[in-house]
């Protein structure tokens, strides 16, 4: 029984770790912090699964909800630094191979835009376009109505367009 739980857990890690890491990364703008948050997310998932108090019906949604809660805690602890601040502080997200470096550079452009968005828009934009979640899934995870989520997405996209326009 315990082994089955472990298998389910490890399979979930293999399937969602990259997505959760990416979600954290575009929410907190810090690669190392994102790694910590992703790891902590899975530790909490395991604790819950291991205790077995309640069956997890939608594991993906459950993992995202834990990650979102951790990110909110992180915001409360310390407001996320802007990309400029991070760069000034010597932050330079570097992977260990060429494709990682390319990913980081490309990711930075997105971060530059996201850092200019208000948090309520940034959250839904990341979830909708980077995590590829449906408005219904987003609504479940952030505890808002689907309608509210759609409005936020639209307003967020509007802000992104304005930012892109000023950039070009």
């Amino acid at each position, binding site marked *: 029984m315990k082994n089955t739980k472990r298998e389910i857990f490890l399979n979930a890690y293999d399937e969602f770790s990259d997505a959760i890491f990416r979600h954290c990364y575009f929410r907190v703008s810090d690669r190392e912090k994102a790694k910590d948050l992703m790891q902590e997310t899975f*530790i909490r998932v395991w604790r819950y699964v291991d205790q077995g108090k309640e069956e997890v019906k939608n594991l993906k949604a459950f993992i995202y909800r834990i990650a979102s809660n951790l990110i909110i805690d992180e915001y409360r602890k310390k407001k996320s630094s802007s990309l400029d601040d991070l760069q000034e502080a010597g932050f330079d997200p570097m992977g260990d191979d060429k*494709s990682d470096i*390319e*990913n980081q550079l490309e990711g930075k452009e*997105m971060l530059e835009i996201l850092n200019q968005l208000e948090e309520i828009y940034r959250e839904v934009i990341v979830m909708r376009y980077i995590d590829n979640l449906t408005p219904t899934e987003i609504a479940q995870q952030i505890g808002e109505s689907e309608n509210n989520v759609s409005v936020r997405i639209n307003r967020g996209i509007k802000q992104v367009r304005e930012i892109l326009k000023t950039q070009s």
Partner: protein
Amino acid sequence: MNNQFEKLIEDARKVSLSYDEKDLIRHALKKRIGLINESPVFGGFRFFSFKFVATALGAIVIISTSISYAAESALPGSPLYIVKNFNEKLSSLLILTPEKSAEWQVELADRRLEETQKLNGVGKLDEDKRTALEFKFETNANQFNKEIKTLKSENKLKQAGELTGKLESIIEKRKKIFSDMASEENMSDHSEINVILNKVNLRSEQVMGQRQEIEDALAEDDDVADTKTKPQQLEESPGNSEKRTKDSLLKLEIIQ
């Protein structure tokens, strides 16, 4: 604009963990859920691993050695002085022969006098410290006397003489320094340095007397040895000259 945004989204979705990062976290999680039984990792070391234990022991040795080294120059009143006393007691336990013990008592007596000198030099020799140092000095000197007595009973007069001479020498050296200190600073007769100087003077006389006694005993032994060896030499002399005469005559016969 849409194309530009889509391109950004496409690029953002490529952001991922490297293979090593993902594997490392997976490994940590496997340990967490009990699939790998390994001792916990602390600062890059596994508890109870050879590397961890060796590093911990090394650190303990280095810290202990540093503290002991620093304690060697500690003076009464300093927290490290306790360490110094502890080290001295530990060293005492490792001494097995009366010669070594007497030598160690000389060293300890000198340390107490040196501490007295240093404390007085910085104006920190108060009555409590002086009394404590004086007591320790006297204890060392008395223990020294016991060891010398043992050496005498074992008929090791030469060693006893040398050690007593050594103690006398260090007492004389410190006595002169104390005396200079007292006169330079116009200390009253009741000043701490003068009080201890009087004690040192008394001990100096006792040690000097002891040394003379041992030298007399040694001289007596030499005399006895001389009186035993001289008749033997006289008895041997005629034989030797007779032998030499015979040898000379034989040589003459050969030449002729």
